[in-house]
């Protein structure tokens, strides 16, 4: 049986966890600043840490792409724009334990030889922004940031930058454009940010949880981190359970744990109901059903079953939930958040929304199912960035698993579900 492994969440039940007193003395940063920067990069490579923002790219490898001795400034940008539907791990992490991120920023910036770092946090989370800024200020006051950090001769400035409401800014190059003061629209790659990122300089962009995991790796060693997880998906991660589950919340566990194991801990699906469908890692990851309860939640196993581990955002829906309504709502989200830069995504999400609305009202036809699949086929792989691809995941996976439910809508000329039965109070 897999058990929970609280590391990043370990101090969250301390009332002062967001202060230095409740966090610790930056022992990992002290240790790192006495190390050769390349040795830190090697250690993170050895740990097997892969990006926790969804894509799972090896973190140490990404850092290794930064050209050294190029005479240009280097930048670290933390992607704290957590907005993928269902994803709710970085926000509580930064609220409760911002110092793990700040310490990770110091170590990472030192490793990649950056002297300026940014945390780009979504704007819609005021108290999280306060906590981050207070932690950064505390770190400056104690000499962990600024000039000649802890007498090492290393200088680092860290700025907390608030976004202004745009899911697309979670896409790393859109984030860079936004941080430069432009509309947040993705850039053509290559060049990749490691070569030409912020202000056209070498830049590492990492997710909050990835960077916050770094101090523990430096502190305990690559072998310690790699002792958790599976062969190719090492370490721990925060699994976020939401929806029709008895005890929703944040569960920090080794990668490779299954939904069945997590549900056992979380008291199962809410009383008197059964699992119908779920997302392994947010709305952009194809939905799973009860037949996937035992899929190890690691990058490879989830991929092999046709979905993606994503951000471990486990949105759980029971049998009272209408799949068509759910997919419509996600599609409306993608249409709302499409930045407009490329035609397949801008037009495709718009038309998907129109057809799904008709289907949900029971006014569609079987031909409409062909239409939404066709539109999704024309977005997937043809859009400028992953937002468009993500928009097709709920479409394709829902038609695959729940075709009959779509048909039922126009057979009876309406939605066969009572939305009141799905609500928190509807169960009472």
């Amino acid at each position, binding site marked *: 049986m897999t058990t929970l492994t609280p590391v990043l969440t370990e101090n969250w039940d301390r009332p002062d966890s967001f202060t230095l007193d409740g966090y610790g003395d930056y022992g990992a940063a002290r240790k790192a600043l006495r190390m050769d920067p390349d040795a830190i990069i090697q250690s993170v490579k050895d740990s097997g840490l892969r990006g926790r923002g969804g894509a799972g790219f090896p973190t140490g490898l990404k850092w290794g792409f930064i050209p050294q001795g190029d005479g240009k400034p280097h930048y670290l940008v933390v992607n704290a724009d957590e907005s993928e539907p269902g994803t709710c791990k970085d926000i509580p992490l930064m609220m409760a334990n911002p110092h793990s991120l700040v310490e990770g920023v110091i170590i990472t910036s030192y490793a990649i030889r950056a002297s300026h770092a940014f945390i780009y946090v979504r704007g819609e*989370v005021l108290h999280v922004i306060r906590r981050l800024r207070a932690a950064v200020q505390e770190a400056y006051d104690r000499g962990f940031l600024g000039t000649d950090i802890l007498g090492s001769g290393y200088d680092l400035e860290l700025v907390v930058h608030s976004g202004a409401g745009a899911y697309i800014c979670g896409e790393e190059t859109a984030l860079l454009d936004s941080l430069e003061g432009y509309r*947040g629209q993705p850039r053509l790659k290559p060049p990749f940010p490691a070569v030409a990122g912020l202000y056209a300089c070498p830049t590492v962009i990492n997710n909050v949880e990835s960077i916050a995991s770094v101090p523990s790796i430096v502190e*305990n*060693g690559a072998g*310690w981190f790699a002792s*958790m997880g599976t062969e190719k998906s090492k370490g721990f991660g925060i699994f976020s359970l939401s929806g029709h589950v008895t005890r929703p919340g944040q569960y920090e566990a080794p990668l490779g744990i299954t939904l069945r194991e997590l549900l056992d801990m979380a008291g199962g699906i809410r009383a008197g109901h059964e699992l119908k469908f779920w997302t392994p890692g947010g709305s952009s990851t194809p939905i799973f059903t009860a037949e996937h309860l035992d899929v190890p939640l690691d990058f490879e196993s989830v991929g092999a079953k046709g979905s993606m581990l994503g951000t471990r955002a486990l949105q759980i829906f029971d049998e009272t939930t209408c799949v068509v309504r759910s997919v419509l709502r996600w599609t409306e989200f993608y249409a709302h958040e499409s930045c407009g830069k490329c035609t397949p995504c801008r037009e495709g999400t718009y038309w998907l929304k129109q057809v799904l609305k008709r289907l949900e009202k029971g006014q569609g036809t079987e031909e409409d199912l062909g239409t939404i699949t066709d539109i999704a086929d024309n977005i997937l792989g043809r859009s400028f960035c992953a937002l468009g691809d993500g928009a097709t995941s709920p479409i394709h996976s829902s038609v695959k698993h729940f075709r009959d439910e779509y048909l039922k809508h126009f057979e009876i000329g309406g939605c066969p579900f009572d939305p009141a039965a799905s609500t928190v109070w509807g169960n009472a």
Partner: protein
Amino acid sequence: MTYSPEVRERLERDAKEIIGRYPKTRSALLPLLHLVQSEDGYVTDDGQEFCAEMLGLTKAEVVGVSTFYTMYKRRPVGEYHVGVCINTLCAVMGGDQIWEELSEHLGVGNDEATTDGRVSLERLECNAACDFAPVMMVNWEFFDNQTPASAKQLVDDLRDGKEISPTRGPKKLCSFKEASRVLAGLPDGLAGDGPSAAGPSLEGLKIARANGWKAPSKEETE
């Protein structure tokens, strides 16, 4: 209308401090738009003119950016801007019903404010608190685990001027303008208020503690 000399001087002082944090000045545009919103309650013509002047941009460049982001409001919002999450998870858990009842209760729709200017409503996309569904936000502070009744009580209290505490946030809810100032990057000293974590955020940790589950020690893995 342009800013009075006193207001202008104050805004310039704040703007220069913010601009000074960035290697390139244009990076300060998003914070400066939050700053003018903290003065005017929305992104005004004057505010955009001010941003353009401070950053050496044309007004068209500023407008091109401000219209892209949903948090910049093009007309006044209420003193308390209330958002209801209607993305799938929250909608299914009751957000749709909350939205319908709240909108009817206040007589305003999406992106509209009550005539007294106290409360405005917005249909929100996912706000990263799904384990607390259904979620509402007021001036970007969390109001977790809402019901139609609690939502209506909340807006009534806001309109009556009662003191309100977010679920996870400061003791006293800020106004929309005050919140915008924090977003611009200017501290309000309230970071220490409120819990570290609450409710579902602690669920996994509680279970781990109850079972004595821990991450392996460094020694075990050497």
